[in-house]
Each structure stands twice: as structure tokens, then as C-alpha cells.
């Protein structure tokens, strides 16, 4: 979330799209109801009528996978009706930036597409510039650190001065390009594509666009319904563009808010539990691209914005990982960092590699891909190729028991499976990060039962044993492990979460004192820091008690900032939000260029003429504490988006793999033809053969998957608990009465849902909450099913919805297209 849970209450309009916040993030409703009580409008856009829709003011049904048609139409509506926040757009976004005249778009393809590789050459996706403005690396300059002793040598990037047209009239400015791109998204066409009735669509557009009025705030709540598409990243871009056009980024009650579906999934992303990043969102080095530290720094350090400090963060990370071994002389042990081979190693690719026998061992840590993976019957088969598997979990999951799957003959599986019992949340201590980026310390309540162990303890035991074995017996590249710092243990040698917290926060190497926050990090090896964005969450040197650290802070008073009339629900004394306890990211944009808040009733930051008044930690260098004890306040500027090299919000994003503007394509399995362009699907997507895609002739029904309030993920934490099973006891699919009539089904019938990838059984639940869509003049049925069931579990087992989902991934992130695919259904003949 760019904002946070409590902040939802500040919104004037709340739109949940691609997320079902009432059911899957119940606590969000505490704040939605509060906002509603204050007069906010709550809009829910979803293919089915959910429990969120039940309490919404307005509900818009939309066929799965057509979000960009909805948003593209919204952009067109906003621009055509001049509903955008003019001053905001001109000052804080890239609207006025001029794009190369060579950039273009034609019938579904942006310039530079190479048919053979299926990739874009982004050479034309550039801004027009004039002259250069190199970094000032002189002794008094902002970038003097580049020349500090022991800083690795690299040539800083040379920023170019962009050309802009503040009047937004130049046909090559981003605003005009955008206007032209989305003129094609007429309300009628968008309605035909998405199936949302035209009137309802216009009503929703009008309501949400009303937040473009200065001082109004609209928030978007989303989850996997946005991201799990082959153009999921573009869906997210579409939301960002909406919020920039309407001036909702940085506002109290605004933002683009990803509701995370697991308690610490935010933390695991921050800690880089993904193949393409290392901690705190830095790219994983690629052998071909970044063979040396110098290559990495030169290619990965941007020309402008706060990320220009990346060398400091990387060197501090290396110092934490390799300690004394990391020196300026050996490039801070950069060679020890594992490098990618240029291939994709995301979830889908990993199982493809397993299937091919390339990946021999699998370590599962609270993961259950046998139920949660896309096309997961194929993934279960792939696991048969493994030599070994280690599953760390609280129950024997379907994955740990993959060899017992109904379709697998145990005697034919040669994989050795180890199941390590894990401690539950309340049986271990440590911090977890929620969707609002609050890093909250969680204390241990009880000891884990039996042989169950804390994850940190399991990891530590394995790491230390590997270090011992490599030290004693050697092996391939033993230094990668033997030189690795692993001193996060107490006197007894047991994993100590407070030591891990210390390492994550960072400290100065010479005196081993905690750093206040990441602004104190250096690129010269004098500081170590495991994760720069967390820096500051454990910075109290005087006490190692979690309660005395920012992450353990528990002051639940909502105080107004000094000089401000009313608080906005920041609760700055409750835990720590990354970065630097900032609750609303990009909050500079909550005030006009002169620093006057757009909404004087909900001030986030305000320039009173001499200093900044603050209800939150400002998202820019708002002051300098001088050596003489005085404070130098930074007067207002217009750089509201400090993480972007542009310093402005991107309406046009040249970094995307599949185009700078979100463009509507059909899901890979679609019931219709793309009427927006000749490009049926996102052209930059990689498709493996194992996806076994089906056609609309074979499988005419659209299906989507989702979660229920009553269950969690693959069901292991809930299908083993009778109290929860009782509240939603059986696997089912939901379908409209119209489709039920067509197929001769009534509620309670056993049905078989099938496509090329598999067939599953479920009970039929016939409900008017599902309605047929009128798509491009044709009646299209959509059904849906929860993906909580599998074949392991003491209280309830059932069909695995993901046996049907395609293993086709997003062009940028490879997240699978779980949310829109094709099936057929029939009654099970008994």
C-alpha cells in the first residue's frame, strides 16, 4: 500500500477492483465503514457479487481480465471531461514531458516489437532531452560520496535535461500521447468488452473521477484480481495513472493500495523472496550484464531520484552479508553474490525446469504449490522428477504429500521427502510487515509443540551445518558459504531474532553502533545494513528489548502534528512503517507546489512559510539539521516523487516490458476476440507448451478463482480446524441460474469442471450473484471457485481449482493468469 489501513477512513471515494476486501481483508472494512459513515462512496468492481459488493454503494460487474478496458475508458472520460487535477498533473506528473517522435503505437503494438523474439526493443521509448546535467561530485556537491575513499570506482550516470511543454499542447508530450491512445476507449466499446452495463460504468467513472477535484481523495483497493493476469503489471499501472490524473497519490485517503493476502507477504517481498531481486528491491545481478561491481553500479544506479543512493545500499548489504571479508580491495565480495544466468526463474519457470530434470531439489517454506500453483497437476507431476524435497510446514500439505496425490502411484515416486514441523505465528518472535508497510514486532506467546521449530532456528541450523561441511570438506565455491556472516545467534547458539533485526537495521562497522536510519548509510564500507528500507526500525542502541525499539512501539494515540489542528490517523507512535516511519508515500503531493495542502482538513504536510508542519514523515528532504544545532528547512519544490528519476509521477512508463501505456488485450484463454486491436493477447508474454491452452469453442465458459473469508490460501491452516471448516465445509463452484438451467443443474449437484489441463469435482452453488455477461453482443457465462481445497487435511478435502488454471505468466513479472481462463462444466453422472 502506498497508504495504510487506517488511512482508508480519509477517502471520499473508495474503489475496490480486482480485490474483495471485505472477504479477504476483513479489517479493511473497519476503515471503509468509518469512511462511509463520514459520507464516502464505496464502489466495488468485480466479476461476481461479493460480500464487499453487498455493502457497497455501487457495484459494477466486469468480466474477468477486462480491467484495462475499464481503466482506459476511465482515462478517456477523465481527459475528455477535464476531470483531472490540472495543477497536480502539470506539476507532479510526467504529463508535460516530451517523448521521442519515433515512439508510436499501431493497432495493438507499440514501436519496436520483434516478432521473432516476442520482445520489444525499447529504443524509441525515450524522452526528448537537451543537454546534460552531470552529478556534482565535487567536495561540496550532493554526490561527493562518489569520490570518498574506499568507495568502489564507477562512472556515475549522466542525467539529461528533459524537454517539457507545461501547456500540455505538444503532440509528443505524454499528456497528448495519452489522450490519443485512450480516445479509442469509447464508453460503448469498453462496455462491450467488459460486459459492464454502460450506465453503471459511466456512473462509476463519474463517481471516481469526482476525486479529481482538488482536495478530494479517492483510494483504490486491489489484490490478486488485478495482478494475476498476463497484463497484471499493466493493470497496476492503470491504477497508478488513474490516481496521478486525479491527484490522489500522496493524499490522505488516496493512493494505490495493494491489500496483501498473507500476514507477512509484504515482509517477504521486502526481504526479496523472489528470484529477480535482492533485499530492498535491488535487481539480482545477472552474470552477463553485471559481471563486476562496477558494471552493476553503472547499470543499476539511476540518473536521478533517491535511488541514486543505490551504491550505498548495495555496499552496506554486502558488508552485512560478508562482514570483514568484504573489503574495498575485493569489491566488497561482490563475486560471492549469486548471479542469474539470464533465464527466468519465477514460479512457472522453476516447475518447467523441474519437469526437465534441471532442478533436482526443492525446499518449500510454508508453500503448497501442489494446490496453489497454476496448472498444478502438472506441477505435482514435475515434483516426481525431484531427488529430494524438504517441506517446512505446520501440516503435511498436499505438496509434502504429493506422492500420495490421487493421480500418483507412490511406488513409482523416487523423491525423498522430508517434512520439518514448523512453529506457528504465536510460537515464535520476530517482526512482520503488513500491507501498510508497518513492521510490527510480534512476541512469542507459547513454545512450539513437539519437535516444531521456529523458521529462523531451522534456517540457522541448516546454514551453520552447511558452513561447517563446506569448511571441513570443501566443495564448489565454498567461500560463498564459509565467508557468509551468520552470527545471528545467542550465547546458546540458538537463532536470535533481535540479532537479525540489528543486522537488518544496519550499524556502523567501526564501533558496531546502530544507525539512525538509511540516510546514515555509506558506500565506503563503513556501514553494514541488511535491508535499507527497514533501516530505523531497530535503532535504539540503549536497549535490545523489542518493546524499546521503533518496531515494538505501541503508542495508540493519534496525535496531530505540531501546529496542526487535527490528526489524520497516522499513529506515528505505533510500530514503524518503512521507509523512515512514513505512513503515506509520496505525501509531498498532498500539498500544492507552494506547500499548501489540497485538503486543509486532512493535512499530511504543510509549508507554513517557514517550516513544514507534519502529520506524517514528509517524503522528501524537508530539512537539514546543521552542526550548530539549528534546522535548515527546505522550501517547497515540485519534486513529489523522489523514488522516480523523473521526480514526477509516471503517466508513461518506458520501463515496462509490454508497453509504456496499459493496453487492453484478452486473457490467454478468452471467450471473445479483442475488439480493441488486432492483437488478441499481450504480445510480450512467454507461453510454455505445458499450459495446454484451450479454445472458446471447446471451453466456452469463463472461470475465475478466489478466496473466501472462511478459508486461507491452500487451506492447510483452515481445513484442519473444525471451527473454520464448519463455516464453509465443502468445495463448490458458483454459477448463474441461467447457466444452471442450460446445464440442467441445481444447487447441491455434483459437477465436473474441465479443460485441457484437468478436471475437478465440486458442488454446484447456483446463485444470482453470478450473471451472464453481454460481451461484444454475445452472452458469455462466467463461473468461479475458491482454490482452498486439496487432498490433504483432516476435516475437509475437495477438488483443486488450480488444476484448471493456466501456467501462463505476466509479461513483466511472470505472475500466473489465475484469474481468467476457460472451462466447460457438466453434471456428474452417478
Amino acid at each position, binding site marked *: 500500500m502506498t497508504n495504510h489501513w487506517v488511512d482508508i477512513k480519509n477517502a471520499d471515494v473508495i474503489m475496490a477492483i480486482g480485490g474483495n476486501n471485505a472477504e479477504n481483508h*476483513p479489517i479493511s*472494512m473497519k476503515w471503509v465503514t468509518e469512511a462511509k459513515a463520514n459520507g464516502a462512496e464505496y464502489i466495488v468492481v468485480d466479476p461476481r457479487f461479493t460480500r464487499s459488493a453487498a455493502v457497497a454503494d455501487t*457495484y459494477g460487474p466486469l468480466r474477468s481480465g477486462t480491467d484495462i478496458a475499464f481503466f482506459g475508458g476511465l482515462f478517456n472520460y477523465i481527459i475528455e471531461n477535464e476531470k483531472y487535477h490540472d495543477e497536480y498533473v502539470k506539476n507532479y506528473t510526467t504529463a508535460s514531458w516530451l517523448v521521442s517522435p519515433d515512439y508510436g503505437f499501431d493497432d495493438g503494438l507499440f514501436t519496436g516489437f520483434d516478432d521473432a523474439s516476442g520482445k520489444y526493443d525499447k529504443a524509441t521509448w525515450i524522452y526528448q532531452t537537451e543537454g546534460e546535467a552531470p552529478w556534482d561530485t565535487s567536495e561540496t556537491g550532493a554526490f561527493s560520496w562518489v569520490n570518498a575513499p574506499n568507495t568502489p570506482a564507477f562512472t556515475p550516470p549522466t542525467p539529461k535535461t528533459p524537454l517539457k511543454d507545461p501547456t500540455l499542447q505538444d503532440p509528443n508530450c505524454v499528456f497528448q500521447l495519452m489522450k490519443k491512445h485512450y480516445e479509442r476507449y469509447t464508453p460503448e466499446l469498453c462496455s462491450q468488452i467488459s460486459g459492464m452495463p454502460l450506465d453503471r460504468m459511466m456512473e462509476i467513472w463519474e463517481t471516481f473521477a469526482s476525486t479529481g477535484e482538488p482536495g478530494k481523495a479517492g483510494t483504490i483497493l486491489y489484490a490478486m484480481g488485478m495482478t494475476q493476469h498476463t497484463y497484471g503489471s499493466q493493470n497496476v499501472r492503470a491504477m497508478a495513472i488513474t490516481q496521478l490524473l486525479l491527484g490522489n497519490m500522496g493524499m490522505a485517503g488516496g493512493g494505490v493500495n495493494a491489500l496483501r493476502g498473507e500476514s507477512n507477504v509484504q515482509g517477504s517481498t521486502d526481504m526479496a523472496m523472489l528470484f529477480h531481486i535482492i533485499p530492498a528491491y535491488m535487481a539480482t545481478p545477472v552474470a552477463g550484464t553485471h559481471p563486476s561491481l562496477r558494471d552493476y553500479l553503472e547499470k543499476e544506479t539511476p540518473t536521478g531520484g533517491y535511488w541514486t543512493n543505490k551504491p550505498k545500499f548495495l555496499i552496506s548489504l554486502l558488508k552485512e552479508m560478508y562482514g570483514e571479508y568484504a573489503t574495498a580491495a575485493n569489491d566488497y565480495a561482490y563475486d560471492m553474490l549469486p548471479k542469474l544466468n539470464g533465464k527466468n526463474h519465477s514460479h512457472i519457470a522453476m516447475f518447467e525446469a523441474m519437469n526437465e530434470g534441471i532442478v533436482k531439489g526443492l525446499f518449500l517454506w510454508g508453500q503448497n504449490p501442489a494446490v496453489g500453483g497454476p496448472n498444478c497437476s502438472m506441477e505435482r507431476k514435475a515434483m516426481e522428477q525431484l531427488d529430494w524435497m524438504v517441506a517446512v510446514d505446520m501440516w503435511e500439505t498436499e505438496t509434502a504429500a504429493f506422492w500420495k496425490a490421487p493421480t500418483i502411484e507412490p511406488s513409482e515416486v523416487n523423491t525423498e521427502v522430508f517434512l520439518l514441523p514448523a512453529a506457528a505465528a504465536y510460537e515464535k518472535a520476530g517482526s512482520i510487515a503488513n500491507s501498510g508497510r508497518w513492521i510490527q514486532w510480534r512476541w512469542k506467546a507459547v513454545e512450539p509443540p513437539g519437535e516444531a521449530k521456529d523458521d529462523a532456528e531451522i534456517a540457522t541450523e541448516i546454514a551453520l551445518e552447511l558452513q561447517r561441511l563446506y569448511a571441513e570438506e570443501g566443495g564448489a565455491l565454498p567461500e560463498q558459504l564459509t565467508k557468509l556472516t551468520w552470527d545471528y545467534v545467542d550465547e546458546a547458539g540458538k537463532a536470535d531474532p533481535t540479532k537479525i533485526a540489528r543486522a537488518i537495521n544496519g550499524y556502523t562497522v567501526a564501533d558496531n553502533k546502530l544507525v539512525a536510519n538509511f540516510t546514515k548509510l555509506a558506500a565506503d564500507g563503513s556501514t553494514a545494513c541488511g535491508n535499507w528500507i527497514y533501516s530505523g526500525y531497530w535503532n535504539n542502541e540503549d536497549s535490545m528489548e523489542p518493546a524499546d525499539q521503533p518496531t515494538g512501539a505501541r503508542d495508540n494515540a493519534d496525535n496531530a502534528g505540531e501546529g496542526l489542528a487535527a490528526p489524520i490517523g497516522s499513529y506515528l507512535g505505533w510500530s514503524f512503517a518503512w521507509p523512515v516511519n512514513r505512513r503515506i508515500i509520496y505525501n509531498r503531493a498532498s500539498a500544492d507546489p507552494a506547500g499548501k495542502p489540497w485538503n486543509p482538513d486532512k493535512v499530511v504536510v504543510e509549508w507554513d512559510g517557514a517550516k513544514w508542519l507534519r502529520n506524517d514523515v514528509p517524503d522528501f528532504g524537508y530539512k537539514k539539521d546543521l552542526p550548530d544545532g539549528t534546522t535548515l528547512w527546505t522550501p517547497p519544490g515540485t519534486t513529489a516523487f523522489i523514488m522516480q528519476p523523473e521526480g514526477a509521477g509516471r503517466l508513461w512508463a518506458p520501463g515496462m516490458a509490454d508497453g509504456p501505456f496499459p493496453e487492453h488485450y484478452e486473457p490467454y484463454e478468452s471467450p471473445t476476440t479483442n475488439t480493441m486491436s488486432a492483437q488478441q493477447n499481450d504480445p510480450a508474454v512467454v507461453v510454455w507448451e505445458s499450459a495446454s491452452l484451450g479454445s472458446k469453442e471447446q471451453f466456452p465458459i469463463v472461470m475465475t478463482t478466489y478466496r473466501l473469508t472462511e478459508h486461507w490460501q491452500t487451506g492447510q491452516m483452515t481445513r484442519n480446524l473444525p471451527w473454520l471448516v464448519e463455516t464453509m*465445509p465443502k468445495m463448490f463452484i458458483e454459477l448463474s441460474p441461467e447457466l444452471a438451467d442450460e446445464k440442467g443443474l441445481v444447487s*447441491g449437484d455434483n459437477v465436473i469442471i474441465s479443460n485441457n489441463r484437468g478436471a475437478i469435482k465440486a458442488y454446484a452453488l447456483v446463485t*444470482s*450473484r453470478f450473471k451472464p455477461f453481454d460481451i461484444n453482443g454475445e452472452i458469455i457465462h462466467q463461473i468461479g471457485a475458491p482454490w482452498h481445497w486439496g487432498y490433504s487435511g483432516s476435516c*475437509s478435502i475437495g477438488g483443486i481449482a488450480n488444476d484448471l488454471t493456466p501456467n501462463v505468466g505476466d509479461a513483466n513479472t511472470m505472475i500466473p493468469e489465475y484469474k481468467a481462463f476457460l472451462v466447460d462444466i457438466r453434471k456428474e453422472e452417478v
Partner: protein
Amino acid sequence: MAETAIFYDASKCTACKGCQVACKQWNQLSSPLTADEFEFTKSYQSPLELADKTWIIITFAEVDQDIGIEWNFMRNACFHCTDAACEQACPTGAISHVENGAVVIDQEKCIGCRYCVNSCPFGVPKWREAENKTFKCWLCQDRQANGRSPGCVGTCPTGALTFGERPAMVAAAQTRLDEVKAAGSDKAELYGVDELDGMHVIFLAHRGLEAHGLIRDPQVPGSIKFWQLMKPLSGLAFAATFGGLGISFLASMGYDRDSNNVEEVEE
């Protein structure tokens, strides 16, 4: 101690069923441990009914609309009526009002007669065969005694359930009613303020009582009122019979068939 009440605001309820589970957890009401015990309910409502080990459920009612539906939720648990049929029907005094207005069953005194089960206009009390006792929501008296709200209220994430002194809850309900009416819910109604002389759960049914499945103008069943007369009536009847027979007995004292039967038939 003042009377307390729960205020359930249906317009804020998302039917997450947190209250159902919290109730079972706090009151340690077990659910079956085996998979086969659970049946598909053909609805999001599950379990479908209250039971001896299910003291609260959220009900789901669908009303079809052109776009989407109206999905109306309701909290179904003991209403804790002031004019409580169960209490009147209970022959042992096991069911009584406690000081804070809640209607509770004293399991020591319960004889499992199920008169309350069959008397409650809402079908709330449920009989457990194994123990031959009847059970229902007791408004978490143990929590209340320690200054806490009932378990269901404590877990509600949306603020649909709130708890406090009854007059304050009624006032809050009234305020909320005005708010939702002003916001366009013209069918909104309150429930439990006056029904059965005042319940200890107050409801805001923003789509009207019937849409949410509430019984309009509930009454203690007439038969219970009649039946309440039965004990005095039977006492009276027997006393009258005894009295009559006593008088007859006195009148017959000293009766001698031969001397009195003057009209004895002659053969």
C-alpha cells in the same frame, strides 16, 4: 448493574462469520472433527441453523436485482427479550433474567424438558441429547463480569457489533437509523427497542425487517400464556373437586341405606 445490550448494524456487517467462530472459541463449543460430519449447505450460510453448540449464526438472504443482488445479512442468536417466552415456559426456573438483562439458562436447574425450545418465537434454545440439557447464548456473562464485551462483539472487524449499556445502544441505533435513512436506505428499521418489551440485542435492518428475515412484532405464543394459567387452574380444579367431594362426604355421613331408602322397590 445497568442493563447492557449488543447493537448489530446490518448495514456494516460483511458476514465474515468472525462472530460465529469467536463464540465457539470463547464458549468452547466444539465442531465435529471429521470431514464427513460437514454437509454442503448450498449457501454461504453455514451452519444453516442454530444448535446446542452453535449459539450464533449469520444468515444470508438474496434478493435478485438487475445488476447484482441485494445480499441481506442478519445476526441470528438469542435476542434476550424482556418478555421472554423461554423464561415463562421454563418449569424449573432454570431460565431467568440476570441483572444486566440477559436471559440465561442455569444448567444445574435445567431438566431438559425442552419447553423453552418449543416456546421461543425465534427457535433459539437448543437441546443437547447427550446431556439432556438446553443451551443458548448467554451474552458471555463471564466476559461481562470482567468488564469485557461478549466474544462476538470483541472480534467484529467492521464495527457492525458494538456493546454497552442498553440506553446508549438504543441511542446509537437511533442515530445510525437516521444516518442510513438520510443516505437513502428508506426501508431501514430498528428492531429490539420495543419488541417483547425490549430486547438486549438491538438491530438496524437497513433494508427492512422482512428482507433481513426478522419476525415483525414477535409475541410470546398464546399457548404459553394459556399454559401459564394451567398450574393455578389445575390447583383450583383439584381443590374444588376435593371441596365438593368433602361436602358430599359430610352430607353422606350417617347415611343408612335401609332407613333412607324409603322408596326401595318392592318385588
